[in-house]
């Protein structure tokens, strides 16, 4: 131990003062000083023994700390923060259980390529490896679910590790990075030199390649295609290629199908937007993909939820795959022209060389596939006394003009949200796609609200998932966050129940769910709330929530055994959809083909 733990400097309020010249700081101070230098303004965390030195130093820095109720919440908040803003989200925990509680949130960020940095405290280096109190090998545990992680046990290594962590998190294909800092490294002091701690420049993946030959091949495929479809994925948001993809679609008159995470990456109201593809995608979207002769995949990874059976996936289509991660090329679907690199850059190279084309014949074919489904609006259907989740979501969309950030949980409501809430703006949908993490919505919405306080933020969650992270209601109350919460309450773990109905002979084992009175629960936290049981009450309650300053929870008691349609059973081809039984015209009115 070189120096003792006393603060080595007195006035650290201004960010530039901290980062402009070398100063002697404790490791604890160096953690926050590095974050300030990296442009961090907000951190989500939970203190504890091994991270206490850092918390002791926190008050000296211009950082907002949001105290969470469980570290999983901190990781999801950092995740929601990053998705809403495009900036790196930060979560802080102590060692042992604090760190392991982050794991689900880290895995979630890894699967959806979200840039977050997690800082965990660790026991002192002299007792590392001795099963000390609250010691856990968190770098070992998170090895397969982080882009990279660091164990830092020397004070002078804190700033370089943390700066590299931020660089890795946001570079290339983004993802989570964990920095585990021992308690003694926080307590000791060293010279803090922000500039000298800069990591070496980001090393692009060596297998990137979008040579002019491949671009020419892509252009040739685009020129000759009769039935092209653009597959719009999450990478559009990461790359900031919103305008470029739109230009590609408009100039070549190519219809666009979105993945779940790509839903806000192309304006929903755009005439070329078909909607969501995949397991719960609309019938015409999946039919268009199956009949296409060219797919242009933009920042998506052919997940099993969007391809259905690989053997029968888009059999007539040539495939152009524009993707930044070479490990995704030919992973699930063999592609004809891989363009490996940053989507925006590749499109900026490709677009000036591309001739405009007329796509009216193919667009006409797709329009006829839509049939009367293309003009459906469930608000126009008569009230039959039932409240369907689709009503609720459609009404929230109408009332907000789609001008809100929506964080959803995982399950039926998530798919209904994807179908009925039309996202126009990039980053307006925050949802757990790859990992499918129940309990994500509430903390992710907190992160989004902290990142974008001027935006209206809605949580749409099921009664099951909501209870996984509902203690974060206390975080909302403590931080006085104006977040509206819609619980789609059907008394079941709805999506699991739907699978039991379809594939397990309606054996509803362990899916009926008795929940607390969510309005009373909200009330206990000092959060306003209301029950809604009738369709006629939806709009007025949504308006009450919107005009209320502060958080508002609405418990929507919806039809219990409703299912999400269409649905492609696992392993079936993309066009082999289970359609809504015709005796129930609500929710999906598309005619059987």
């Amino acid at each position: 131990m070189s120096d003792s733990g006393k603060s080595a400097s007195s006035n650290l309020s201004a960010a530039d003062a901290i980062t402009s010249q070398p100063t002697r700081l404790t490791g604890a101070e160096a953690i926050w000083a590095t974050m300030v230098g990296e442009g961090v303004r907000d951190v989500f965390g939970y203190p504890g023994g091994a991270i206490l030195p850092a918390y002791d130093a926190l008050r000296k820095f211009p950082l907002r700390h949001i105290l969470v109720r469980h570290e999983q919440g901190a990781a999801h908040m950092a995740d929601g923060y990053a998705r809403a803003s495009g900036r790196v989200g930060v979560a802080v925990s102590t060692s042992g259980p604090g760190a392991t509680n982050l794991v689900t949130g880290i895995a979630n960020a890894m699967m959806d390529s979200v840039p977050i940095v997690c800082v965990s405290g660790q026991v002192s280096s002299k007792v590392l490896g001795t099963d000390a109190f609250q010691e856990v090998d968190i770098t070992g545990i998170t090895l397969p679910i982080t882009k990279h992680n660091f164990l830092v046990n020397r004070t002078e290594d804190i700033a370089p590790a943390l700066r590299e962590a931020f660089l890795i998190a946001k570079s290339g294909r983004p993802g989570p990075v964990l920095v585990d800092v021992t308690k003694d490294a926080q307590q000791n002091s060293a010279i803090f030199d922000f500039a000298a701690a800069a990591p070496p420049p980001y090393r692009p993946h060596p297998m990137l390649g979008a040579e002019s030959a491949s671009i020419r091949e892509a252009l040739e495929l685009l020129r000759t295609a009769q039935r092209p479809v653009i597959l719009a994925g999450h990478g559009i948001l990461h790359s900031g290629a919103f305008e470029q993809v739109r230009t590609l679609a408009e100039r070549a008159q190519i219809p666009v199908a979105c993945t779940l995470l790509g839903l806000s990456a192309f304006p929903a109201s755009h005439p070329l937007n078909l909607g969501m593809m995949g397991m719960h995608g609309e019938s015409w979207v999946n039919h268009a993909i199956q009949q296409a002769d060219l797919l242009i995949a933009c920042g998506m990874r052919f997940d099993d939820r969007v391809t259905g059976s690989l053997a029968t996936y888009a059999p007539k289509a040539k495939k152009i795959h524009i993707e930044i991660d070479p490990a995704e090329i030919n992973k699930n679907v063999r592609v004809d022209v891989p363009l490996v690199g940053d989507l925006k850059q590749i499109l900026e190279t490709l677009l000036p060389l591309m001739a405009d084309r007329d796509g009216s014949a193919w667009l006409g074919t797709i329009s006829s596939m839509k049939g009367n489904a293309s003009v459906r609006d469930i608000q126009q259907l008569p009230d039959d006394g039932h409240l369907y989740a689709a009503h609720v979501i459609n009404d929230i969309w109408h009332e907000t003009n789609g001008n809100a950030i929506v964080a959803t949980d995982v399950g039926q409501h998530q798919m209904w949200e994807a179908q009925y809430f039309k996202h126009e703006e990039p980053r307006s949908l925050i949802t757990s796609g790859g990992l499918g993490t129940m309990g994500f919505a509430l903390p992710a919405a907190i992160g989004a609200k902290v990142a974008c306080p001027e935006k209206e933020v809605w949580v749409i969650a099921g009664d099951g998932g909501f209870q996984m992270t509902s203690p974060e209601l206390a975080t909302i109350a403590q931080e006085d966050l104006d977040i509206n919460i819609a619980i789609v309450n059907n008394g079941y773990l709805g999506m699991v129940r739907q699978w039991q109905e379809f594939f397990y002979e309606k054996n509803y084992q362990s899916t009926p769910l008795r929940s607390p009175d969510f309005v009373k629960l909200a009330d206990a936290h000092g959060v306003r709330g209301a029950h809604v049981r009738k369709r006629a009450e939806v709009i007025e309650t949504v308006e009450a929530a919107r005009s209320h300053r502060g958080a508002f929870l609405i418990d929507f008691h919806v039809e219990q055994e409703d299912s999400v349609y269409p649905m492609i059973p696992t392993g079936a081809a993309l066009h082999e959809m289970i359609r809504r039984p015709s005796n129930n015209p609500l929710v999906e009115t598309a005619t059987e083909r």
Partner: protein
Amino acid sequence: MLHTFVVLVEDRPGVLSRVTSLFRRLNVNINSLTVGSSETVNVSRMTIVADSPEDRAHRIMASLYKLEEVLEIDDVGRHSAVIRELALLKVAAGPETRSDLFQLAEVFRARVVDLAPESLMLELTGSASKIEGLVQILSESHYEILEMARTGRMAMRRGHHTSRVVDALTETRTAPNSGGALLAGKRKNAAVLD
């Protein structure tokens, strides 16, 4: 099929577990793995032999490159390369059976590196098949192999091919004004996988 990857990595704690964890995650079995120093300070050289379908090699390499500490990968199985393995064999042998073993060793160009009253130790370097050949002859001749240790394969391409990544690292280290941009550029050039 068997793939032989030569992987240059930064010599830091935990790198080996990152690499092996990746193979586990990709559900690819590692047949052998050797790690040791390379010609460059702070760069270790791994030779990994893995059993996977032909079309998985691309994904294995692309995934390995995503590890921060991996500098360069060469799929040497695709090129003319020297592939060697070292084996130590302790064989039960008394004074009357030794001379036969000496002859066998000579045929296989193995060296006797230890001699005890009831055993001797052979050191053999060569391809895997050569080692397996000796083992087979020994067992068919009813010699008892008391212990065997094999290093797993090491590989090096024939000819003048050298690692461009390591070249680049060396260049930047020796040229003080070149800065990190050059390093990044050079590293990127290393991408071209011939």
